[in-house]
């Protein structure tokens, strides 16, 4: 076996080794180790995408045992895409964090712990994307959840602790529900590996067993972790009160982790209609999320809360795929491609938006949007970040958001479910409303006081790189579609074209 065959394991080992090194070595080398680790992971992620495009999905048997006895890692096209997204966003967040956490005040925000926790969360996310086993999903979800809660509470003030507590509650509730679901599923089917489960669930009578109840619980748990309306109650406070690099990672990546597990369950494991009505219900909730999240974003007076509610809205788009998927063929390819492109574009743009919003807060010394007038002149790069990232939120060309909206609308019309197309159109308009409300303030001619620019140019350039990448992401749509073609997210009995 060559290095290329070990890529899935290496993508988990590298960040874990980095986290361990940061933990045991002196504080003065934290940043250096984290940056090197981020670079290594990015390199490995690029190799993984190349490998998957070249040789198809990769199945890696840990210790050589193989399912159903051992634990398998599965690196198919979508998993490789999410790993690459995590690597790119993660590198930008790391670069930003080196400028954000002041070197001179090592205890502020308790950031001595940041680097370890951050690499540990990265490890768990990569593992979550790669795991091919429903029980391991539980383990990874717990690891991601614990490190995320710890990161949210880094600042240690009352607001952070309250938000962290709420987040912890949601996270534990989801984990317990999921575990209960897995237990029921296991007692009914006796299998945990997703591919084996997929075959088992197609047996006649599988739906009547406890498997359906177990899977329902698992889906509900993942919906809670992904913060789909009405289970979004924990997200805005947790994402808004965390230190800025953490906010970016949570909104851009962590919600995608549980979402990806949900996608695997709904499309990769269950036959169409196994849980009747759930696919439509999820899309309806997604539509409500688009409207509700946007309206809330429109009403927020503080900038990070505003960005967080925009995440609530954008998550909704990810759920339109489910009622479309069972049609198969072109519709499935379009809907899946659009959804994954949306997840990618949103990941890049939302990380950029959060990092940019955090820098604006630092510059103005407060979080009130209404008192950030004149930023277009005093902080032009940050204004550009907010505006360009906004283009993706609105789904206007040439952003990745446009590509995904186009594909989802085409899929809806082609499947004869045109009403989703109207929701998608309305969502774009609402996003324009909430984004331009903020942009208009930044463009105002009256100027509010700003503090001096921090020496670290990373605070401006890291978000700009992300926002620009998202802006031209429609050009990456062919790559995403190639990766979708190497997907295990195809319901049994349904074909990709």
């Amino acid at each position, binding site marked *: 076996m060559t290095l290329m065959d070990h890529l899935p394991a290496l993508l988990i080992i590298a960040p874990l080794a980095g986290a361990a090194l940061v933990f045991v070595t002196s504080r003065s080398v934290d940043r250096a180790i984290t940056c090197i680790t981020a670079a290594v992971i990015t390199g490995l992620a690029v190799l993984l995408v190349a490998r998957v495009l070249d040789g198809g999905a990769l199945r890696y048997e840990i210790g050589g045992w193989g399912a159903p006895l051992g634990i398998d890692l599965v690196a198919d096209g979508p998993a490789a895409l999410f790993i690459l997204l995590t690597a790119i966003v993660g590198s930008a967040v790391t670069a930003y964090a080196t400028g954000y956490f002041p070197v001179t005040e090592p205890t502020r925000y308790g950031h001595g712990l940041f680097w370890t926790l951050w690499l540990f969360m990265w490890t768990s996310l990569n593992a979550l994307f790669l795991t091919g086993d429903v029980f391991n999903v539980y383990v990874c979800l717990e690891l991601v959840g614990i490190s995320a809660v710890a990161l949210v509470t880094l600042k240690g003030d009352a607001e952070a602790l309250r938000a962290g507590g709420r987040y912890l509650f949601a996270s534990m509730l989801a984990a317990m529900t999921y575990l209960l679901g897995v237990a029921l599923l296991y007692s009914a089917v006796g299998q945990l590996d997703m591919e084996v489960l997929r075959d088992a669930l197609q047996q006649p009578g599988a739906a009547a067993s406890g498997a359906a109840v177990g899977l329902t619980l698992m889906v509900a748990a993942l919906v809670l972790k992904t913060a789909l309306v009405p289970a979004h109650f924990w997200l805005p406070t947790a994402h808004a009160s965390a230190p800025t690099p953490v906010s970016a990672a949570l909104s851009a990546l962590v919600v995608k982790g549980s979402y990806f597990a949900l996608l695997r369950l709904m499309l990769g494991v269950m036959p169409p209609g196994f849980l009747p009505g759930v696919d439509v219900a999820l899309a309806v909730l997604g539509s409500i999320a688009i409207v509700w999240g946007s309206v809330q974003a429109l009403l927020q007076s503080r900038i990070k809360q505003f960005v967080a509610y925009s995440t609530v809205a954008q998550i909704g788009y990810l759920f339109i795929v489910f009622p479309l998927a069972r049609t198969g063929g072109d519709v499935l390819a379009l809907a899946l491609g659009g959804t994954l492109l949306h997840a990618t574009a949103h990941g890049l743009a939302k990380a950029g938006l959060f990092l940019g919003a955090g820098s604006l807060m630092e510059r103005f010394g407060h979080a009130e949007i209404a008192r950030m007038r004149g930023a277009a002149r005093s902080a032009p790069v940050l204004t550009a970040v907010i505006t360009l990232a906004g283009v993706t939120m609105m789904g*206007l060309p040439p952003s990745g958001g446009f590509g995904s909206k*186009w*594909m989802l609308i085409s899929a809806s*019309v082609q499947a004869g479910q045109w009403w989703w197309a109207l929701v998608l159109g309305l969502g774009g308009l609402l996003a*324009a409303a909430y984004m331009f409300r903020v942009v208009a303030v930044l*463009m105002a001619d009256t100027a509010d006081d700003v503090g001096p620019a921090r020496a670290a140019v990373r605070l401006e350039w890291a978000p700009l790189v992300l926002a620009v990448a998202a802006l031209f992401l429609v050009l990456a749509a062919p790559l995403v579609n190639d990766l979708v073609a190497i997907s295990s997210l195809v319901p049994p009995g349904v074909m990709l074209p």
Partner: protein
Amino acid sequence: MAWLPVLIPALAAVGTFVLGEDRARARNALNLGAAILTAGIVTALAVRAYDGTVTVSTLPMLPGVDLGVHGDLTGLLFAAVASVLWCVTLVYAIGYMDHARDRARFFGFFALCISAANGVALATDPVSLFLFYEVLTLTTYPLVVHSGTAEARTAGRTYLLYALGGGTALLLGVAWLTVIAGQTPFTPGGALHAVSGHTTALRVVFGLMAAGFGVKAALMPLHGWLPGAMVAPAPVSSLLHAVAVVKAGVFGMIRLVNELYGPELASSLGVAQVLAALAAVSIVTASVIALRQDDLKKRLAYSTVAQLSYITLGVALCSPLAAAGALAHLAHHAFMKITMFFTAGSLAETLHVKKLSEMGGVARRMPLTMSAFAVAAFALAGIPPLAGFASKWLLGSGSVEADAPWALLVYVAAGALAMGYMVPILLASLRAGDRGSRTGIESDPRMLWPIVIVGAMSIILGLTAGMPGSPIHWAMTAVAPSFGGVTP
């Protein structure tokens, strides 16, 4: 090569942003150089297109959808107007914005607008056109709110409300069409013959797309954003009202009727007739409203609404002569209207005159400027042998050819109304008033000469109407294939 008219202005914009606020000389040189280069490339493409060689270039984008541009005659006429007027407007804007703030932002987005407008002009198909059309909306917004005042920001919000609403309608229409027919490149005479059985769907798609284009084309009742957007700096008003934005709307109508549905299908579905009726109502209503405006820029704005509907009506008549007249009027109106907006900007910037009632003595103070304005005003009203006459003659003959005498009546009435709203401006400037007593004559030469040049174009384009390469000849050659290759 077909990408260059899109890429060069975009690169100039990036350069402008990177150069920053203070390096004015380098910025001006970069923008002027890019503008002249772009105009040259468009000309070269046009020479090729006249010889029958259409340069096409595509780039894979979404599944089953490529992003493409091509240098065909119809598109190149619009691109030529945008690029040539970009050169002129730049000189004017450099003078106008001499002491203004945020010039890097201004010139950067200006160049981006031209890039997007050229993209709209050269797009090969509805999806690519939609892409550039939305980019145009976004890049115009910072120009509309440029001053940052509360008034400007309100105007910006109204603009976005209309433009993004229209854009959403266009997106749904284009997406639906692509599901029915796949990606359909614009083809003279229509590209939808194979799917003409889907009559209901095609009617709805036409409605959605026409609504999308109608916003920028200020087709009543979708024109509400245009008078408000007048708060923008004068070079932007000129660009908005004469060159890029509104023309992108009517240009979309031309592509939609002539080269997507085709005149035959559009009239057999009955959609062209509805569009024609809306445009006719829009012409008359806007002209009447223009009569009563005291604010100079508002009066010009309503005149724009009326003139744009001339073009829409011409296309919707589905006759070769009217279609050629519409395309030629797109170019002619650009030159005439930009002269007027430049003049309005000079009056406001140099003399602080914004209303007709304040214009006394202006003609004595700025004789050259007001002469150029007068030429453009008479051209707009269709006085021979100026540019507006030539295109209106074609539009009128086209009405007869289409067996629609009522349209001829509308055009004649609108001509009379145009005299009605233009002549009072000239009279107001000739009245005695204190404006003439101020020291100095005319304005900054960088503002004066562009006005004189574009004003002179109204005469030159009228006199050379029959020659190859003139907008009239160009438009006739361009629309001929849509009507079975017969040169009208």
